[in-house]
C-alpha cells in the first residue's frame, strides 16, 4: 500500500494534470469580454489582499494619521468596490450561460459560497474603519444580528472581534473557497455556450 503522499500526488495528477492546470490556450468560444470578469475579480482580490496586508502590518491607527496610510486604505476600499462590481457581473454572465451544465455544479456552488462569504468579509471591514461611518454601520447592524440570534457571538460593536474576523478568519475562508473555485474551473474547463440547435428545437416544440 502506497503512502499518503503518493496517493495525494496521484489524486492531484489524475484530476488536475499540469496541461489542464496551466493551459497554453483558451477555448475558441471564449471570444466575448464577458469571460474576463472572473479574472478581473481575482485581480481585485489580489489587490485587496496586498493592500490589506500592508494595512494590517502598520496597525489599525496608521490610515488615520499618515497620508500614505490613507492612500493604502483608499486602495483597499476601492479594490473591494471593484471586487464586488466585477463579481456581480461575473455572476450575471455565468447565470445566463447556465454555467452549472456539464458536471459543473461544484464550480457553481463554490462561486455562490464565495459570494456569500465575501459579504461578511466586507461588512467586518466597514465596521473596523474606526470612524463615524463604522459606528453608524455597527449600531444599525447590531439590531440585524440580534434579530438573527447571533449577536452574542458576532458582536458588531466589539471592534477587536470584528477586526480579527476581518484580517484573519474571513480572508482565510475567502482565499480558500476562491482557490477551490479556480481549481474546479481548471478541472472542468470553461463552460461552453448553450448549443443553438437545442434552443431552436426547444422553441419549436413549444
Amino acid at each position: 500500500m502506497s503512502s499518503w503522499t503518493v496517493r495525494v500526488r496521484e489524486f492531484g495528477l489524475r484530476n488536475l494534470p499540469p496541461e489542464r492546470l496551466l493551459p497554453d490556450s483558451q477555448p475558441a468560444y471564449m471570444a466575448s469580454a464577458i469571460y474576463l470578469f472572473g479574472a478581473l475579480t481575482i485581480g481585485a482580490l489580489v489587490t485587496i489582499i496586498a493592500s490589506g496586508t500592508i494595512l494590517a502590518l502598520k496597525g489599525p491607527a496608521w490610515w488615520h494619521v499618515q497620508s500614505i496610510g490613507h492612500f493604502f486604505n483608499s486602495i483597499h476600499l476601492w479594490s473591494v468596490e471593484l471586487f464586488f462590481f466585477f463579481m456581480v457581473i461575473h455572476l450575471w454572465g455565468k447565470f445566463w450561460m447556465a454555467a452549472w451544465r456539464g458536471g459543473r455544479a461544484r464550480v457553481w456552488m463554490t462561486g455562490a459560497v464565495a459570494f456569500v462569504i465575501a459579504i461578511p468579509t466586507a461588512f467586518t471591514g466597514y465596521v473596523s474603519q474606526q470612524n463615524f461611518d463604522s459606528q453608524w454601520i455597527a449600531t444599525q447592524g447590531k439590531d440585524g444580528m440580534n434579530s438573527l440570534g447571533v449577536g452574542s457571538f458576532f458582536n458588531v460593536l466589539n471592534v477587536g472581534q470584528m477586526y480579527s474576523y476581518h484580517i484573519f478568519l474571513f480572508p482565510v475562508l475567502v482565499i480558500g473557497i476562491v482557490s477551490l473555485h479556480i481549481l474546479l474551473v481548471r478541472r472542468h474547463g470553461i463552460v461552453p455556450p448553450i448549443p443553438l440547435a437545442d434552443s431552436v428545437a426547444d422553441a419549436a416544440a413549444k
Partner: protein
Amino acid sequence: MRGFDISSIVNLNGTAHYVHWHFFLMSVPNLVVIVLMLIVFAVALFLRAPGAKRPGGKK
C-alpha cells in the same frame, strides 16, 4: 484642508438623495452603481475579448 487633498466630485456632507417610487426606495449612489453594472454587463456581452480569434481564424 490640505492643498494636495482631492475633494470628492459630490458633496458628501450634504443630505443624502434617494429615489422613491411606490415600493422602490434606493439611494442615488447605489442606483448609479447598479445602472453602471448593467451597462458594463451589456457592453461586455458584445465586446470582443482581447486576443480572441474571429470565426475566420483571424485575430
